[in-house]
């Protein structure tokens, strides 16, 4: 592409991203995008330039029906995953009984505030565990989503980090599958500000002292969702 063409491409990309390229011209440009990587690079650059403007709009939580419709439309609703869900329900029920924790409700709820989540990532930003805290039920769920390196003869132990408090053990972490941990009441009562989780490598069965004794391998922030 010559200089003039390059400039024109950049201008069109800018107006496309801004949204002022409209009508048939917009359609034509979208068809060109399919075929021209250079044009796509211009568009991506403008998306990175203008995109941060969107952060200036105040967030508004959408009504629950939108998520229900999305689940139906993507086939990710309970109906499709019936067997898996039933298993998860049974497992969570068992966990609740074993831990002596009585959950207020085991109904799988739609996205409801407040909740927290973190993704524990390993090398190259690969996700290892997905951690979600459900404050209403007082539980923290952990699921191994990636290929978690084997801890060998050791155990992975999960810690809750809070401001001005020592790390608190939430129990051992599975290398595969999922686990559920009760959240300490003190954390539920006083949660605010930055909190996080950490994973340390401990002797089999967990730290003998109640504090991390092995190396802290991973850390992640629990972000409010």
């Amino acid at each position, binding site marked *: 592409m010559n200089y003039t063409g390059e400039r024109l491409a*950049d*201008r069109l990309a*800018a*107006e496309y*991203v*801004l*949204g*002022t390229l*409209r*009508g048939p011209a*917009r359609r034509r440009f979208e068809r060109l995008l399919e075929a021209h990587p250079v044009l796509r690079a211009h568009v*991506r650059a403008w*998306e*990175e*330039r*203008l*995109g*941060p*403007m*969107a*952060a*200036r*709009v*105040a*967030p*508004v*939580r*959408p*009504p629950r*029906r*939108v*998520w229900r*419709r*999305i689940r139906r*439309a*993507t086939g*990710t609703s309970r109906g499709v*995953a019936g067997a898996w869900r039933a298993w998860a329900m049974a497992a969570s029920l068992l966990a609740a009984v074993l831990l002596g924790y009585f959950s207020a409700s085991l109904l799988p709820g739609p*996205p409801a505030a407040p*909740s927290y*989540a*973190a*993704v524990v*990532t390993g090398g190259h*930003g*690969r*996700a290892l565990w*997905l951690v*979600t805290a459900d404050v209403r039920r007082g539980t923290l769920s952990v*699921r191994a*989503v*990636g290929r978690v390196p084997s801890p060998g003869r050791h155990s992975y132990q999960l810690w809750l980090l809070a401001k001005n408090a020592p790390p608190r053990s939430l129990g051992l972490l599975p290398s595969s599958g999922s686990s559920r941990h009760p959240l300490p009441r003190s954390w539920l009562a006083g949660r605010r500000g*930055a909190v996080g989780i950490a994973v340390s490598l401990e002797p089999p069965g967990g730290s003998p002292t109640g504090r991390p004794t092995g190396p802290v391998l991973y850390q*992640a*922030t629990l*972000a409010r*969702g």
Partner: protein
Amino acid sequence: MNDRTGSDERQLDALLAACAGGDREAFRSLYRFGSPRLFGLLLRMLGRRDLAEDVLQEVFVTVWNRAGDFRSSRGSATTWLTSIARNRAIDALRKSSRRPLSAVEPDELPGRADPFGEVALDQSSARLGECLELLGDDYRHSLALAFFEGLSHSEIAERLGRPLGTVKSWIRRALESLRGCLEA
């Protein structure tokens, strides 16, 4: 603040990667984190709650189906999501009748008064804010009407009571100086 933003961004990246692998829990978390920001933007652009809900649904269905594309695109996850939402909104504006503003409660329209007046949220946003400050008021206002309200050239001209040609050149020059400033 920047650390927090950076870590949120990494979480979104990881969630998108997990979605690409068909992980439904990750998709659910992505929705929890990503939807309020996008829904606020869609309400602003579309001015209609029903339409904003429809487009938000379309956006997340697209995200689920195309999460695998994200990895190769190299940009930030937030930008990727924002771009999908804005493109869908512009398509929806083309198809639907122009927003009856009365259909939306005033308090449902977030931050309508001065979109550029708010505190910058992170580093890229802060730099962008500085660059926007350097633009003349007319340039900045035209950009805001296009970006936040999805107005076309002629709609902006009508809103500001200025000739179409003038508005077109304001926007062209605004984009040029913005790029120059961001690359400086």
